[in-house]
């Protein structure tokens, strides 16, 4: 079978899974997830050379396949900075998102051969977890505008959401490190006056910055019922970190949006799909996205035990479906509790610690 035909057939199958859940709420059984994961992995072994070499070094080849999706080798996120992890020529990439270079200031790229999987996955997840009531909202974005920064996966995601689900009056208030607070205030006042419900989307750090600025201007808003907030993890490389409880309390007070309308999203550039908080504050993903929690030896830990998260995202058809992170979490039911990432090694005394080293570089 040719590469194009094989890729097309896999994409069609993945899109059917996404559509089945998006439109009809149909999930994936363990056996179905296993089967599709194994076939996508076998395909990636054939076409993603750096990934195949890595798997081969671990004893996993087409002739020695993993017994289950739990054993599919996961590439560390940093590997996206080391090599082109794609099943296709990246010159043909429909999307290329750049990682933030969280740990070393060096970015990597996640190439995708088609927009279809990414778009379908993000919209299905957003519809389910943020727009379950089908609301049409005005979107105020504290994330990069994809027109300015097309390499931002978060910007692209919100761009698609706004285009597909917004009321046409989308606002973008972040450019580089600059937050356009006055523009936000003007647009927010107009939305309040018009009684238009809004969705404010941004990183936690951007929300902290916005709240600080609004506090300095003594500005508060009473957005229309149905308004909501999508907050995504994002203190990376930032010095000021506030607790989630404090941040959410500030958001509730500043925008008049009830706490239950604040949805935390969690994903990363190296994935095509997203996790979202449920009402139980446990993160849930779509059926084609699963996580396993691993210990120091890479083995899957029992439910409730904290370890490193490995994501298996079937929508990552054209890159690597298994991605190893340094994010800590614990499996809980069919979701995960995200603990976050520790800020460097806890070294002692007069020793050099990772955060210090990072700070002086």
């Amino acid at each position: 079978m040719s590469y194009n035909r094989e890729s097309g057939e896999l994409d069609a199958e993945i899109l059917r899974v996404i559509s089945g859940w998006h439109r009809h709420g149909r999930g994936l059984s363990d056996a179905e997830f296993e089967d599709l994961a194994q076939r996508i992995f076998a395909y990636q072994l054939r076409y993603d050379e750096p990934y195949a070499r890595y798997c081969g070094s671990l004893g996993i080849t087409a002739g020695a396949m993993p017994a289950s999706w739990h054993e599919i080798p996961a590439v560390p996120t940093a590997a996206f900075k080391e090599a082109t992890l794609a099943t296709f020529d990246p010159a043909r990439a429909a999307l290329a998102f750049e990682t933030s270079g969280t740990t070393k200031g060096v970015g990597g790229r996640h190439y995708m051969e088609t927009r279809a999987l990414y778009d379908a996955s993000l919209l299905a997840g957003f519809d389910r977890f943020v727009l379950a009531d089908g609301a049409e909202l005005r979107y105020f974005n504290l994330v990069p505008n994809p027109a300015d920064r097309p390499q931002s996966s978060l910007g692209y995601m919100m761009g698609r959401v706004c285009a597909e689900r917004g009321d046409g009056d989308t606002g973008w208030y972040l450019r580089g490190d600059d937050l356009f607070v006055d523009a936000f205030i003007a647009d927010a006042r107009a939305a309040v006056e018009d009684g238009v419900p809004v969705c404010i989307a941004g990183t936690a750090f951007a929300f902290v910055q916005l709240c600080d600025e609004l506090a300095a201007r003594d500005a508060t808003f009473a957005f229309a019922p149905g308004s909501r907030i999508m907050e995504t993890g994002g203190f990376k490389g930032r010095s000021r970190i506030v607790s989630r409880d404090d941040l959410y309390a500030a958001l509730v007070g500043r925008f008049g949006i009830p706490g239950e309308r604040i949805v935390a999203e969690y994903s990363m550039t190296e994935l095509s799909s997203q996790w979202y908080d449920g009402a139980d504050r446990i993160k849930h993903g779509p059926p084609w996205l699963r996580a396993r929690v691993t210990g120091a030896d890479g083995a899957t830990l029992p439910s409730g035990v904290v370890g490193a998260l490995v994501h298996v995202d079937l929508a990552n058809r054209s890159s690597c479906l298994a991605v190893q992170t340094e994010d800590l979490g614990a499996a809980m039911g069919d979701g995960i509790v995200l603990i976050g990432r520790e800020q460097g090694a806890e070294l002692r005394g007069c020793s050099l610690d990772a955060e210090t080293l990072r700070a002086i570089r």
Partner: protein
Amino acid sequence: MSGALASVPVRAIVRGLADAAARWADADFPPRVRVLDAIVARTGYALPVVEYALDRLFEAISEPALTATIAGELGSLDALDGWTARAGRGRARALPVGPVCIVSSRTTIGVAIPAAVYALCAKCDVVVKDREDHLVAAFFASLAQEHDAFAGAASAETWSGSHDARDLSGFAAVVAYGRSDTLAEIRAACAPEARFAGYGARASVGYVTRESLADERAADAIAEGAARDLVLYESEGCLSLHALFVERGGAIAPARFAGLLTRALERAHVEFPPGERGAGASARLGSARALAAFRAASGTGAVYGDAAARHLLVLDPPASEPPLLLPRALNLHVVDGPDDATAYLQRHRIALEAVAASGKRDDVVKMAVDAGAARIAPFGALQSPQMEGNHGGRFRIAEYIRWITEDT
């Protein structure tokens, strides 16, 4: 001169300190046994590691070591007891600078004790603000049994952070260990004229020369020492091995040396079992291991570890890679000479505390000097500093002395 030790002859002070330390060097000494659990709980280190630390700490505090250091820095011990003549100059006397505070929160085991010992030799009253394992307090209790004056001169309090920092203005000298921001906060709380000795962010590295890799036996001995330097205190201290440079061109190739080091690490894990490891450290170790394996699969370097993930050794990572700074994890850089090591240290702006070297070749010594190291040690001894040594490149007792001299 005021202070509880003012009228005690320095030799009696030194003897009391050494005698108390000798009792603490005995693994069965009841006060030592009583603090073990607390130290293990605080640090997360395995019991043999804690025992080793206490052995090294207290064995080093001996009369010969203390007298040699005092004489070396002050000219003689007598200067601490009265006026002493000096060749070609007027008489001089070494007086205590005043009350000394040592802040040793979040340190490896007993870091404050050597500093306290020298401050007491200088006849200063000493307050150590320490963590909750009470090691320092227990040692001070033993000192009081040696000489009543120690009871009034040495005390230990639990450090509660910023709140305590406000109480530092009454000290003539403050010694502190910790992160740069912690040190800055403590320094700001000191009296303007107070002496401040801050022991901040530092690391140690190893350097293996090609000549020392002459044969398997020699290489194995170096590996044995390097393994010990790496695993002790879970690589957390400023004297832990944070990077290792191995020269090309020896009879034993760097890759072979890495294999020997791996075997030595496996033996070291038996003598010094790994301590408690948090999920965060495990996650970062897993990620670092996977990245090294990914690179190795692409033909760059190699990765060594064991199934239980007790250690991680990465051979020949990119020079852009900073030290791993993870428990029992080490990057082994293959180099042509000390210049490569210097470039690496400069690139990552690493302030050195010590260099473990397999040979004292001039260019290796120069590398250590240029990098700001305070000590050069053989492999295996990196984590066992001598009392005579100059931690952080500073004087040991002179920091606590106020000189008075007579004009000729």
